[in-house]
């Protein structure tokens, strides 16, 4: 069996092993290479900087643990940024597994994370609120944007919305200075843009997984989204702009080797394939 044949019949578990090593190696010896920030992420930052302090922003946290490596660091940085700007945050979710992650992220931010001081003074119900999950996908999106209380009579703590000062005067999409969607798929960005952004003209930005990000470029280019963060790189960019040393920046380190491995695999696989075709 020559090398080409061996490669053709290579057990894929060797490749799994290689990828495993590629994932672990940077943890042992970080490369810490510098990187340029994406303009679309810079736009999110600039957009939030433009929101006057004291305004209320709606965050729809539509992801679950599966996409947490990509989107959780973004959420953390986002709450840090919003708290830093003294913006009030109303968080809701269209994904059932999201609300505990929201609580966790905000707790971390309050404690202080990534070299940023904490925001211990932020009060639940006054500075932020976690409304929780509702089933119903676009129907929830539509109801929330007209009248939050029609779907959310209570928050995750079981309290009536009217018992929280932050909800005072907040009834629908018109009362939010911006809407930020952290989305891992359906229901997510597309539904928010279609049902809410194009209808109410609310300023909207999104963080999404790298997988889906490019599908939403048309929304960004048409101005429907004022910023778009793609996957872990986007989260790392945001952390960098914000001056946080977060999880995404260290994660990006791991991506270096992983990407090189995949490119190597594609090139090698094709080489083997074409050589094999020539010698039938």
């Amino acid at each position, binding site marked *: 069996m020559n090398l080409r044949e061996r490669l053709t019949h290579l057990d894929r578990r060797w490749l799994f092993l290689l990828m495993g090593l590629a994932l672990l190696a940077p943890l042992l010896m970080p490369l810490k*290479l510098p*990187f340029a920030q994406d303009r679309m992420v810079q736009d999110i930052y600039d957009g939030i900087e433009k929101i006057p302090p004291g305004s209320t922003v709606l965050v729809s946290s539509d992801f679950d643990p*599966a*996409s947490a490596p990509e989107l959780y660091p973004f959420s953390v940085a986002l709450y840090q940024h919003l708290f830093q700007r003294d913006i009030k945050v109303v968080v809701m979710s269209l994904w059932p597994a999201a609300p505990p992650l929201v609580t966790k992220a905000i707790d971390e931010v309050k404690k202080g994370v990534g070299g940023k001081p904490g925001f211990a003074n932020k009060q639940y119900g006054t500075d932020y609120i976690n409304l929780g999950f509702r089933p*119903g996908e676009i*129907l929830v999106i539509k109801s929330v944007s007209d009248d939050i209380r029609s779907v959310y009579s209570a928050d995750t703590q079981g309290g009536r919305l009217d018992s929280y000062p932050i909800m005072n005067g907040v009834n629908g999409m018109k009362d939010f200075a911006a809407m930020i969607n952290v989305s891992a798929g359906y229901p997510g960005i597309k539904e928010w843009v279609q049902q809410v952004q194009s209808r109410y003209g609310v300023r909207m930005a999104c963080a999404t997984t790298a997988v889906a990000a*490019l*599908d939403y470029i*048309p929304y960004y280019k048409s101005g429907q989204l004022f910023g778009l963060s793609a996957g872990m790189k986007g989260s790392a960019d945001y952390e960098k702009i914000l001056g946080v040393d977060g999880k995404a920046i260290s994660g990006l380190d791991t991506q270096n080797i992983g990407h090189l491995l995949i490119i190597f695999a594609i090139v090698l696989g094709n080489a083997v394939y074409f050589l094999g075709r020539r010698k039938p």
Partner: protein
Amino acid sequence: MKKTIPLIVTFITGVIMTVEYFSPHPLVQHPKAAIEKWGISVMSAMIVLGTLNILIVNLPRIVRKERDWMYKAIMVAAMIATAGLGFYEQGKFDDKGSFSNWMFTHLLVPLQSTMFALLAFYITSAAFRAFRARSVEATLLLAAAIIVMLGRVPIGELLSAKLTGGALNLPDLVSWINDVPNLAGKRAIMVGAALGAISTGIRVILGMERSYLAG
């Protein structure tokens, strides 16, 4: 009757939800709000039904000791344990220190994220074994993919700058690909998909598309 009633229901809800965008009149807006609220209830019932189905499908199998019945039993036990604890603690999955939160953090999170983490491995194997430059299309796709893959990581940025003496900035090229050719392609797909969705929507509302009634 079995077909007519659902078709009428679809027609009414569909028309109200369409017209609602154009008419701010309360006679349209109030039914619309009710449809949204009721629809949400129906969808939560669907979820409950789905969970019930797990029991209905698996319990007989466990009782009959079919193949892998032990795993099914573990699944049902895990489900009942989670649900039981959750109901006992009133669904407070985000209360630190509660059992529900422990289950969420130490069972659901690692399990779900590892399930998806498998994809990182599969993509390596697929890259090696299945992604072939068999045609002009596939070649082009892989070329663009490699550029983007390199341009999105620090090491690619560094290499491109070093190798070309700063003439080529990969992240800029990636931005250009995203903003120009990618935009054209994605927008065309978006427009086409929108046309498809609209025509299907119209057919559904008018009862010409009724495949969802089968079964």
